[in-house]
């Protein structure tokens, strides 16, 4: 599924001459559709205003529970005991016939940049291992590949010295979008300092450990020890970035690959900063 795939939107409305949708039916129907990942436009009128855009597939559900697609083709609703179930069946039917995306296949976890705070320092681009960040044609940092982001990993927001990176589904502020206090800002800067004290930066720490490991492995040729060293390295990274999920740490590439990717990202950041 691509993020640009079209999506079904259910237009829930009331037909002339039909009994109005009860508040209970309305609530249950809209709740059921939202839980399945469908957008709903509730319009208590006989003629719903259908949005015109090439990324939206409308499914029209009228007050009686009878269903039509936007082209007027009736969708069978026989045997559906509740309006909520009928509406879900209609949405599914329209989605299948139109080839629209199946909702709910991606958990939308990704960084959102507060440009009122961002100074375009590129630390996030340099830091992110997963290619989430890029720059626009004017060299401005952007989250460009949101679906590359590792679910529940807020690591890049931890390296942002201005607390400009939000993850709206994060548990606590200011990363969740709550206002940034002076204390928050000092705390973020302090984290950078701590990581610097531990080894210049996280990548430097990883590279350093990798070098030491390589030197030792040259003598010992022991794959088990290599694995142990890597685990130690990842544990250290986990200590620095306390809320980076374990599964993210365990899925990180090798220290050599991390170092290579970091260099590439830094080069991109430098290029953007120099305006090249």
């Amino acid at each position, binding site marked *: 599924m691509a993020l640009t795939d079209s999506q079904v939107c259910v237009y829930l409305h009331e037909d002339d001459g039909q009994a109005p949708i009860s*508040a209970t039916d309305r*609530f249950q129907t809209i709740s059921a559709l*939202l839980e399945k990942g469908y*957008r709903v436009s*509730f319009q208590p009128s006989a003629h719903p205003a259908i949005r015109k855009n090439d990324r*939206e597939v409308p499914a029209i559900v009228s007050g009686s529970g009878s269903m039509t697609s936007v082209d007027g083709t009736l969708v069978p609703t026989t045997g559906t005991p509740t309006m909520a179930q009928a509406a879900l069946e209609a949405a599914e039917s329209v989605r299948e016939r139109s080839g629209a995306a199946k*909702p709910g296949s991606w958990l*939308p976890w990704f960084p959102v940049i507060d440009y009122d705070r961002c100074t375009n320092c590129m630390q996030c681009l340099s830091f992110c291992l997963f290619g989430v960040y890029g720059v626009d044609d004017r060299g401005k940092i952007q989250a460009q590949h949101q679906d590359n982001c590792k679910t529940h990993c807020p690591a890049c927001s931890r390296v942002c010295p201005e607390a400009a990176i939000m993850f709206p589904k994060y548990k606590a502020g200011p990363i*969740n979008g709550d206002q940034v206090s*002076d204390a928050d800002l000092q705390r973020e800067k302090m984290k950078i300092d701590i990581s610097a004290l531990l080894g210049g930066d996280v990548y430097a720490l990883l590279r350093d450990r990798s070098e030491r490991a390589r030197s030792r492995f040259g003598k010992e040729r022991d794959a088990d020890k290599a694995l142990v060293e890597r685990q130690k390295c990842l544990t250290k990274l986990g200590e620095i970035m306390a809320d980076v999920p374990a599964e993210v740490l365990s899925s990180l590439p090798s220290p050599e690959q991390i170092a290579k990717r970091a260099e590439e990202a830094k080069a991109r950041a430098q290029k953007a900063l120099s305006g090249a």
Partner: protein
Amino acid sequence: MNSASADMSTPSPVSPVAPRLLYCHCRYAQVVPGAVKNEVLRRLCDSKVPFEAVPDLCELSARKDPALETLAAGGRIKIAACYPRAVKWLFAAAGHPLEVEQAEVLNMRTQRADEIADALLAAGFRPNLPLDRTPASASASDSAGSAA
């Protein structure tokens, strides 16, 4: 600091055109209390006013969904979602920024359901997005940062 919000002490004059209503279900996370979400949605359904309901505003933003353009560009809008700062930049990230004076965000993570529903259904309108950073506020903030 640059996180000042628009003045919330006095509602703007009531517009002859009622603000549109948008409800975000924050489907993919547990950060918005379920009881709050359900009660806000129930009150909207009880009221019989037209409204838009999205499963997850974050998802629409990542998709750069054109529906956000319609929502951002259509005049006044009240949004039941999460933090105003997050909502502001979710719309902006999709390429459809909200106008600061045209949006009121009710925060289902921190506010009570009745408080949110009352505000959604009230005639008044209290824009509360963080103000765009101006050169003056930026330099003031930068100075404060340097001094710290």
